[in-house]
């Protein structure tokens, strides 16, 4: 049994995929614990949540301080002493007094610690984190080495984002774990991760709702190339699919490229709950009149054009001509956005898709379909996803150590390239199984990078350095097929 749960801004969607599909929508006011009571029994639970990001958006006064250990290179203001070189050797030590006086003079809500080449040796970042424990709780300190990839500026941007999300992700994890022993987070690139990994790098949750509908529609329709239009309460999201998967791209935060990849999506600030004044407004104030709200929304406008959604009589206070005008305006705006994508076909999902997507498709001149269960495609996408992991490894035969996803290990002997690749495959396999992956989802482990060079000191070849990246890519689990 596969259980998917998508915690949105106002509702939580649940889907259970077993022999058939069943789904449920629960208002958030009842709390996550209450929702989880609906899915007692065995089966894998996967959770997608946009709440950490919403949380971030609502507390504008939150401040993250970055403590940089830039070492030699381009100039970064606000750095402290200390340096790790390209091979992971500590070539300059950090100074405890400098660090603590920096922290004392830069008070903030959370701390991001980023050292250059920390992905080759995290020791200096860890040392700074230790000094920082007197200033911040663990849930508000983020380090950059778990990001595993080179690119100091990208790690600065990612770690800053992580520092503002970590505490909330930590809270949600504890909450879910109090009801279920194990669960997985659904990431913004449509893969699943164990909570520990996500707490170390919460930025991966960005765009997870878009990734969820993308994967869900792919599962429900079997379409390889199409544009998913998800009509939600507050937004309408456009998510293109290629070869049956949403398309990963670099996440940008504070105008800087991060080290995180999430699916490509375009979000319009209009949905079924968008307020109507003299036209459609890009915000939500509450439910539609048809669902017990106090003012008319796009949903009520649909009712006035002839549909019967919810308590449709309640929508009758809205002027009919204004209603028609608002629906037209909405469909035109979405159709315009559709022109930015060259997918031949549109697939609609979300509760209001059957009422709006046909008109959007007509306006945009594309074919469309709306699969069964379209109203909970998001939660289905979360349910049918699979564990996906990336292993970034750097093997240094000279120094007798390897660094795997930012963690240093001793290495007794340096194998040849084939051996090292095989050991990486096995490790990623072991980690994925530990996280709850289905063994047959691990049939294909991709080798994304494999390069080596000899290290010569004096006139002698001393050993080799090898970089390997292997991945279990995101996708739909065999259990759901």
């Amino acid at each position, binding site marked *: 049994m596969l259980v998917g749960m998508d915690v949105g801004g106002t509702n939580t969607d649940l889907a259970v995929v077993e022999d058939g599909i069943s789904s449920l929508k629960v208002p958030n006011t009842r709390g996550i614990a209450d929702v989880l009571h609906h899915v007692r029994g065995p089966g894998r639970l996967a959770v997608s949540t946009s709440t950490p990001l919403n949380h971030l958006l609502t507390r504008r006064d939150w401040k993250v301080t970055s403590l940089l250990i*830039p*070492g*030699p*290179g*381009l*100039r*970064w203001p606000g750095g402290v002493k200390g*340096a790790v*070189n*390209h*091979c992971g050797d500590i*070539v*300059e030590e950090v100074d405890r007094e400098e660090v603590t006086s920096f922290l004392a003079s830069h008070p903030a809500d959370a701390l991001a610690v980023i050292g*250059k*080449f920390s992905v080759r040796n995290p020791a200096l970042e860890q040392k700074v984190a230790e000094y920082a424990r007197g200033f911040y709780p663990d849930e508000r300190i983020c380090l950059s080495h778990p990001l595993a990839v*080179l*690119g*100091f*500026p*990208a790690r600065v941007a990612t770690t800053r984002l992580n520092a503002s999300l970590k505490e909330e992700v930590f809270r949600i994890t504890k909450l879910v774990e109090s009801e279920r022993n194990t669960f997985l987070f659904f990431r913004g690139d449509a893969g699943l991760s164990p909570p520990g990994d996500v707490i170390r790098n919460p930025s991966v949750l960005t765009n997870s709702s878009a990734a969820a509908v993308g994967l869900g529609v792919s599962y429900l329709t079997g379409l390889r190339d199409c544009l998913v239009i998800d009509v939600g309460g507050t937004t309408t999201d456009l998510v293109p699919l290629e070869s049956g998967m949403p398309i990963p791209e670099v996440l940008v935060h504070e105008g800087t*490229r991060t080290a995180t990849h999430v699916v490509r999506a375009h979000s319009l600030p209009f949905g079924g709950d968008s307020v109507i004044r003299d036209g459609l407004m890009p915000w939500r104030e509450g439910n539609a009149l048809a669902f017990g709200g106090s003012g008319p929304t796009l949903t009520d406008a649909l009712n006035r054009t002839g549909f019967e959604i919810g308590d449709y009589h309640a929508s009758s206070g809205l002027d009919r001509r204004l209603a028609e005008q608002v629906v037209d305006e909405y469909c035109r705006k979405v159709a315009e956005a559709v022109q930015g994508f060259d997918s031949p076909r549109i697939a609609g999902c979300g509760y209001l898709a059957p009422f709006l997507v046909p008109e959007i498709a007509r306006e945009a001149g594309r074919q469309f379909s709306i699969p069964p269960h379209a109203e909970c495609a998001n939660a289905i996408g979360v349910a049918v996803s699979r564990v996906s992991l990336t292993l970034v490894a750097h093997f240094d035969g000279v120094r007798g150590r390897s660094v795997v996803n930012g963690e240093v290990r001793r290495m007794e002997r340096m194998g040849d390239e084939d051996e090292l690749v095989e050991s990486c495959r096995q490790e990623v396999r072991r980690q994925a199984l530990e996280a709850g992956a289905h063994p047959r989802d691990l049939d294909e482990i991709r080798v994304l990078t494999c*390069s080596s*060079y*000899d*290290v*010569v000191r004096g*006139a*002698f*070849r001393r050993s080799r*350095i090898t970089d390997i990246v292997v991945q279990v890519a995101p996708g739909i689990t065999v259990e759901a097929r």
Partner: protein
Amino acid sequence: MTTVIVFDEAYLRHEQSPDHPERRERLSYTFDQLREDGIFDHPSFRHVFPVEATQEQVARVHLPEYISFLKEASTRGGFIDFDTVVPRGLLPLALLAAGGAIRAALSVLRGDGENAFALVRPPGHHARAGTGAGFCYLNNMAIAVREIQQQGIRRVMILDWDAHHGDGTQSIFYGDSSVLFTSIHQRPLYPGSGDTSEIGEGDGMGYTVNMPVPPGTGDGSYHYLFDTIIAPLAREFAPDFIAISAGQDVHFTDPLAGLAVTARGYAELVRKARQLAGEVCGGRLVAVLEGGYSVEGGLPYTNLGIAAALAGLDLENIREPEVFADWLLKAQDPSAHQRVCRMADTLRETLAPYWECFSF
């Protein structure tokens, strides 16, 4: 405006033998350093991939017999000198290095960037028209210079800052007044040429300028030579384009040479060259990597420094880690500067008949 970085991972592929000084490891750490410093995502830089130089472009510099030899040797393996063997499969990689220099120069010409840095391997400045030498097969710099001249650039000034004399480049342009070749290099050191008395021949008399410096020469002397020889020459020659043969074996940690230049000192030289190019030739400036064998202590920091200086970024933090401080003290020879000044006096005297800036 941006600085174009020409680089391809294929440049990490060439290797004569695993323990040769000119080996893959040379650029691997540099590549790591550039990636970690975010150069490939930085708004001031544009990463461009090279394409192989064409037969026609190479034939403007090298003799047909030599090109045929390289082709042949490249399939079976071959021998040029004890430092320079031809490993199998060399030719496409050598063509890609020459093509990288061309790509860099043309992107500046076309305005894709204000200036450019070609991080190529194998190097080129010892290669002559008819033979390779000293780890070099094709003269990347000369091939790029001839290409931009083909595209309408008339006068080019070359600043060869490799620790070794750029004898190949010198010989190619020795009789040519359209290319002003200047070289600062250590003496004594391979290949032994590059005396102040070598100043060109025929039409090219006065258009070859050699500045041999003793071991232990450091940043101060290099800047002295830039300010008192290179800059005045540039103003008088008024080139349309400046090209740096950016060898980095001048670094104080280099195992093959005995000079004492720092990453910061080198970067500041490039900053001055950028200013000079702005003054005399609309900023058109390209740097092409030549030698440099201090794979860990020198190359990552110097290459990053060159890139940063070309882009006009703050150079304050371009430096080696502190652990190298003693090494620098040992490499410097305080008496070297006096000898550099005497050499410069001799040079000015020798060149006085050809350059007004040096006449009394």
